[in-house]
């Protein structure tokens, strides 16, 4: 049950890296639309973004649980880089035999309503449709997409935006969420390949949701840390507000929700090794559902404890809470995933509910 030494070392070194290179200035600058290139370079140098790839593809055969733990650390620092997206792009591309890059990548579609169609064109392909709200698409050196081909899902890897029309957008944390529209864009044969076993739009959506759950657990830890420290520093009525029971009770709830979020995200992460894919999705759905619930409650309390200062741009709490409010909805919000949890449990039936929670 103990955390592995390798994991601990990785997380410590990631923490140091973000402490040194992911200051509030970096996060603020990124919100104006300037990509945090130097931060990205530092992170890329550790090899973490592509670590899950096999060694033959330039990776380190790392455990996904370690990568999600690294995402949790990055999120504590509100790192304005597409780390989760690059990990997932690398996974989808390399597994399907497509090339990856060291640069920042994006991956999609991230929204279930998007439609991308790939048609044969001589020995190459033509791509049409739109991938909406792609994280950091304008900054990505490579875009990895899953499209519907004539014989099933196809993985696509294109340089940059690969001839698509780019429409910029952002979430409420001012993280880029861009739309790529493909109007019969011509792709060469080696830019597309049938998806490998285990890679699919559904699997991408699940892993995306899980990545957001892991990141939210980190952002919640940060929000809690800020709230607990602030309450001990801020003096009103002649004593730190942390001495007031009303504030203590609120912080206790915040701590409980944060602990639950971390535990729920871990449930989903452990499920990645579950051979039963429906059960795996059930546990990932539990993770996104519970973490989303925690985020809603925790943001409210973290702000309440901070009073007016937490509502300013100058103070760092908003870096965490605006991300939480954004990530809560990305790759499906908690109501959507809760419906999936409930639907699966009901399909399995009442008699199976307890075994479902204990035996898999």
């Amino acid at each position, binding site marked *: 049950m103990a955390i592995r030494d390798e994991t601990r070392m990785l997380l410590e070194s990631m923490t140091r890296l973000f402490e040194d290179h992911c200051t509030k200035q970096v996060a603020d600058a990124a919100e104006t639309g300037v990509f945090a290139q130097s931060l990205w370079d530092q992170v890329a140098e550790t090899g973490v973004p592509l670590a899950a790839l096999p060694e033959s593809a330039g990776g380190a055969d790392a455990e996904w649980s370690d990568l999600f733990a690294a995402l949790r650390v990055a999120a504590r620092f509100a790192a304005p880089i597409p780390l989760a997206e690059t990990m997932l792009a690398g996974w989808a591309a390399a597994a399907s035999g497509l090339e990856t890059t060291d640069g920042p990548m994006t991956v999609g579609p991230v929204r279930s309503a998007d439609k991308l169609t790939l048609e044969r064109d001589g020995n190459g392909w033509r791509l049409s449709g739109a991938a909406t709200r792609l994280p950091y698409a304008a900054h990505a050196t490579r875009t990895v997409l899953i499209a519907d081909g004539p014989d099933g899902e196809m993985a696509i890897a294109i340089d940059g935006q690969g001839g698509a029309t780019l429409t910029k957008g952002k979430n409420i944390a001012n993280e880029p969420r861009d739309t790529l529209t493909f109007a019969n864009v011509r792709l060469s044969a080696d830019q597309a390949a049938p998806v490998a076993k285990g890679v699919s739009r559904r699997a991408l959506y699940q892993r995306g949701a899980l990545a957001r759950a892991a990141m939210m657990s980190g952002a919640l830890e940060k929000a809690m*840390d800020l709230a607990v420290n602030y309450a001990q520093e801020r003096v009103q009525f002649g004593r730190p507000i942390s001495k007031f029971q009303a504030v203590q*009770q609120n*912080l206790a*709830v915040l701590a409980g929700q944060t602990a639950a979020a*971390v535990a729920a995200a871990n*449930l989903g992460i452990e499920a990645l090794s579950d051979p039963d894919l429906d059960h795996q999705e059930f546990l990932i*759905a539990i993770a996104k559902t519970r973490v989303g619930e925690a985020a809603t409650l925790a943001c409210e309390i973290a702000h309440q404890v901070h009073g007016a200062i937490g509502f300013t741009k100058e103070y760092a709490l908003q870096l965490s809470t605006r991300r939480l409010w954004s990530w809560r909805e990305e790759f499906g919000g908690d109501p959507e995933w809760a*419906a999936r949890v409930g639907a699966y449990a*009901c399909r399995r039936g009442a008699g199976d509910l307890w075994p479902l929670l204990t035996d898999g």
Partner: protein
Amino acid sequence: MATPTFRFDPVEMPPEAKELRKEVRAFIKEHEHVMGFSRGEYNREFSRAMGKKGWIGMTWPKQYGGHERTSFERYVVIEEMLVAGAPLSAHYTGDRQSGPNLLRFGTEEQKNFFLPRIAAGELAFCIGMSEPNSGSDLAGTRTRAVKVDGGYKINGTKLWTSNAHRADYAILFCKMSGDGKEEPDRHAGATQFLLDLKSPGIDIRPVINLLGEHHFNEIFLTDVFVPDNRLLGKEGNGWNQVTSELSFERSAPDRFLVLFQMLREMVRMAGPDPDRATAAALGKLIAQLATLRSMSVSIAGMLQEGLNPNNEAAVVKDLGTRYEQDIPVVARQLFPTEPELEAIDLYTSMIARSTMNAPRFSIQGGTREILRGIIARGLGLR
């Protein structure tokens, strides 16, 4: 990070737990006729049967009638029993807190006398903490013990004592000096005794709860004599001991599993293809439950490592009681019915029972406010 965070490491149940789970489920099937819903039934015969299986005092040393099994195995037995609605009340207090406290603070003679009997399901304990004027503020206990020849003489009143009218012993918390008011040490003089409930001078009267049931009692102690060898631990060490006892009480999974049957009934009523709103409402509860269970198993892992997960237990109990109180609230929105306790329809009686029981969840074993105070202390705020 600077803020202390609570530790809930992911834990995988060891393989022996899997085999045991099958065995427990088979045993439950054999005893189906005594299973119920959230009633806390008292059934000595069932407790003896559990004792025979070796499922009481599972983690205790064999020399005291225990079975030296892991905290995980104990966890499996308890969660399966709770979910089935097994009648655990006769041995549960002894297994969960009195036994462990005896193991920690008892004399050799006490351990040899009490523990094998508890483990056999033959000796029932109840708790002796709350009083008419001392509920959450346990340090304000007024029950008083004075030293007399060969033992102690005790006077006072205990209240809210579940099952005192059918238990054999209570671990009585009282004061030998001090009135709980003087600072800095409000805990001075606190002492615990192993009280034989058949002793002369004890008068046990029922306190009927709002469901019309008799679980609570008021215990009047008038010049009750307790011999020297039934002092538990040391005179004046009672606060330390009772804190340990409470942490055993709070780390149990019974804080979020007693209404499981009702959740299951809702899944049955929703059918295999529910509408989205119903699925989402049930899914939210299931996600809460799965998370609570993983946190609770993690606590079992900490107990197995010999750690003291006090703060973590308070977190799980606080979240767990909130979840259990939400179950009847969600139920009445999804499947409205007029509650009736004795209704033939199972669900209608469940919603009646759970609605009336719900207030209790965040009071017993430490109120929500007390638990959040413990969590706040764990965060370094107090």
